[in-house]
């Protein structure tokens, strides 16, 4: 895949003929210096963005340049996102934030209650279900974000520096959660700067200037 950013004069090559493969059920960490293209790659994998050239096979189907509607559809049924800055909606409660993906995929409201409560239980945040994001600690917020990412039972979870804003004990908790999810079958691709966090994964892909430079198999 290739991805360029053109501003007035400069053309930045964010992804330079990058090639990679992730198998179902894998837990992959992506590492590399700041500005090397990790987030760009993750956005493309999450179908939030299009590559400028190349091909992206998701579950065997070509999804590069397929059009916004189709991508949105694939995305909401198959992919969950976890961000460094949590990206919870401040105006909604914990419960409502987690419920949102279910609304967008058209799950009936009786089912929604069950599934949201189930996942909040699992993330151990049930007692805060009626709080607003601002009333939670960073670690709690990230647990809500993960709950939201998994409530739809996605095949793939994309996490961009999920522990970047957390202290080490909260960070470890999040990594445990991701590992649990992976063990239950969810594929996880995670961007991280932390070698410590990367150790939770099966494999580390190292990027430099938009190219894979090295792959470490952890297991």
């Amino acid at each position, binding site marked *: 895949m290739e991805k360029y950013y053109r501003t007035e004069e400069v053309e930045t090559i964010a992804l330079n003929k990058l090639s990679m493969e992730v198998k179902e059920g894998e837990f992959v960490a992506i590492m590399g210096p700041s500005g090397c293209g990790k987030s760009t790659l993750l*956005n493309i994998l*999450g179908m*939030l*963005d299009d590559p400028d050239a190349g091909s992206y096979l998701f579950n065997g189907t070509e999804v590069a340049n397929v059009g916004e*509607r189709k991508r*949105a559809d694939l*995305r*909401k049924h198959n992919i969950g*996102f976890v*961000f460094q*800055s949590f*990206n*919870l*909606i*401040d*105006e909604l409660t914990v419960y409502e934030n987690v419920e*949102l*993906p279910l609304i*967008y*995929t058209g799950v009936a409201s009786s089912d929604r209650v069950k599934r949201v409560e189930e996942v909040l239980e699992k993330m151990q945040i049930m007692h805060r279900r009626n709080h607003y994001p*601002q009333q939670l600690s960073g670690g709690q917020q990230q647990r809500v974000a993960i709950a*939201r990412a998994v409530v739809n039972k996605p095949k793939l979870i994309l996490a961009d520096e999920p522990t970047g804003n957390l202290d080490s004990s909260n960070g470890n908790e999040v990594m445990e959660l991701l590992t649990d999810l992976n063990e239950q079958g969810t594929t996880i691709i995670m961007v991280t700067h932390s070698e410590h966090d990367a150790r939770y994964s099966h494999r580390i892909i190292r990027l430099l200037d938009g190219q894979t430079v090295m792959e470490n198999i952890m297991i």
Partner: protein
Amino acid sequence: MFRNYLKTAIRSLAKNKSFTLINVLGLALGLTACLLIVLYVIDELSYDRYNDKASRIYRVNEDLKLGGNRMQYAVCMPPLAKALTTDFPEVEDAVRIKNAGSMHVKKGTENIMEKSVAFADPSLFNVFTLPMINGNASNALAEPNSIVMTESAAIKYFNSTNVVGKPIIIDDKGGYKVTGVIKDIPQTSHFNFDFFISMSSFPDSRSDRWLRSDYNTYVLLKPGADPKRFEAKFPGLLRKYSSSQMQNELHISLDQFEKGGSFFKLNLIPLTDIHLKSSMIGELGANSTTEYIYIFSAIGLFILIIACVNFMNLSTARSANRAKEVGVRKVLGSSRGRLILQFLSESILITFAAVVIALTAALFLLPQFNQLSGKQIGFNSHTLIWLAPVSLFIIAVVGLLAGTYPAFFLSAFEPVHVLKGKLRTGLKGGGLRSFLVVLQFCISVFLIIGTLVVYNQLRYIQNRDLGYDRNQVLVIKNTYELNKQAATFKQQIKQLPGVIDATLSGFTPTSSGRRTSIFNKEASLTDQSKSIFPQSWYVDEDYIPTMGMKLKAGRNFSLQMGTDSTGLIINETAAKFLGFKDPIGKNLYQFDDPKFKKVVTYQIVGVIKDFNFSSLRQNISPVIFQLRQDAGLLSVRVKTKDIPALISQIKTMWHSLTPADFDYTFMDEEFAASYHKEQQTGTIFLIFTSLAIIIACLGLFGLAAYAAEQRTKEIGIRKVLGADVSTIVAMLSKDFIKLVFIAIVIAGPLAWFAMQKWLQGFAYRQAIPWWVVAVAGGGALVIAFMTISFQSVKAALTNPVESLKSE
């Protein structure tokens, strides 16, 4: 210090260009519209105030009730003016003006028709302020055949204003002499003439009759005189002069006359009230009504409110985005007072810019506005006297109002809260903002409904079955020029191909002149309660078929019936007034020549269905047709594709009979002209209503943009979680649409009742159709939705990658 505020203010405004633009333009647009309306209203209120003695001038009106029919006249008896000056010490002077209709003034070999000609007493220039450029004001109109003309008339005929003493030919008669040139009469005068001919040139003006009214009569009271006490002396005056004439002519005493329930009274109207409050028979020109003043003032106020609301809404909405700036400034040590000053100077700066733009725009738009409203408003030193302080006042009030709320609200932020994270300010102050949006749309919906009802009513009036067919009727004027040949001319025209029928008559249903006379049910003519005071029109036997009127009973006039010269055809209303169950064959009586007590017996031969001939604001009054062959108008019903050819054919025939001008109109045009003023007002109404709605939408546009911006990140997250564009658009639009909907629910019924009240002023009106409210509500919703979706769609289409990164 102040310079520092100003600098910061300018920078902050420049940084938010689109916000500043919407805010300044919206306010400027509103102020421009408001300013034009204020100029219009001031112009309407300033009528006749150009007269130095305006506060002491009154017009004498006659209030007449005869046989159950009451009429208000702007004209009085010929000898009244003289009697007022001789009998009453409080009267300083009095003047009569008599509209002379049209006259032909000769320029070289050409006869030009002039329609603004009047006879006037010499005292004209003492009572009214009509400055004389050339000539002696005190005696210019003293001698017979003297003519005073306006500056532009003098230029038109002599190319000079220095023309006193020059002869002038009128209606092909010499002997007239120019005795004065006055400045053009201001447009804000209830009368507007180009030529004044001395009253002594008009023999009828010496009439001593007190039982007729056809002279507009004005009195100038001495300073300090009480008009009410003066008015109280009128009954005595009438008794003194009219009793003997009434006895001689009607053969009854004034007491008997009044016992029958009839009366005739005189009253005064202040000169400056005439334009807005008087619409009587015999006015010197079409006047306006206070109703329009109220409507326009209300619209002006509405627009100002809408524009100011926008300004406040956008300012407070934007203030939330500046929470962080406030937090930082406070941490750095800025006091609350300073912040308040900072915000206030920004909003005052914006208001100032808007006022400057509005003044400039109004100046440029004034010519168009004048054309639209038929006015001649100009900016002059007079305007500046009130405009300058008003502008400063607006800058201060609007600037402070709009700036105060954000200033105090924002400056009260605790920096810790602001800096810690996102403050939920977008929602705070939202209550007030929602209220203001509802207010704006209430006004807009109200105005839309108002406009629709006005248009619906005007269209109804114009398309109503008036009881005659005004289309395809050519009306040739001044057929008295043809003398005895008029009837022959009519017969010739009837032969022309393309002509269906033709009729000679004194009036058409659309002509403005009217003639009334008195009939009695009893030959003795003494019992006033048995009399009727209808309009009486001379028509010929072709009138009813040519006009497309319908007989309800009896028959049309016929030349075969030798007795039809004393036959009458009455309208349904006259029949009702007379109280005849079967009017056909009944007699009515009238004096032929009062001096010899000769009574003529008339017989009703037909009843015609009521037709509308005056404004549809009024009920139909009694009309009686009398048969005559020599009246002044020839109406021709035509049916041809080539009307110009037919007209030129008729014109050739006309000129073979007379050298006089060939003057014609079409009946439907004359009809339209009588509603011109209402149409004009309707158009202005429509324009300002649209403006109000545009300004309201501009505000909504700004608010929607603000809301979308506030929620950029939220939109991004929702999209990542799977929301599609329509979901996002619906989410962003919902809140505003809800407000507009509330506005419709509130304003709909209010407007309905208000317009119902307006319609009461029309004798013929159409109930407000249900679709008016539906269209207004639907229209407001659609316009609002389109305005908002522009922003919401833009926000919804933004790639979430961008919005999430901005954190």
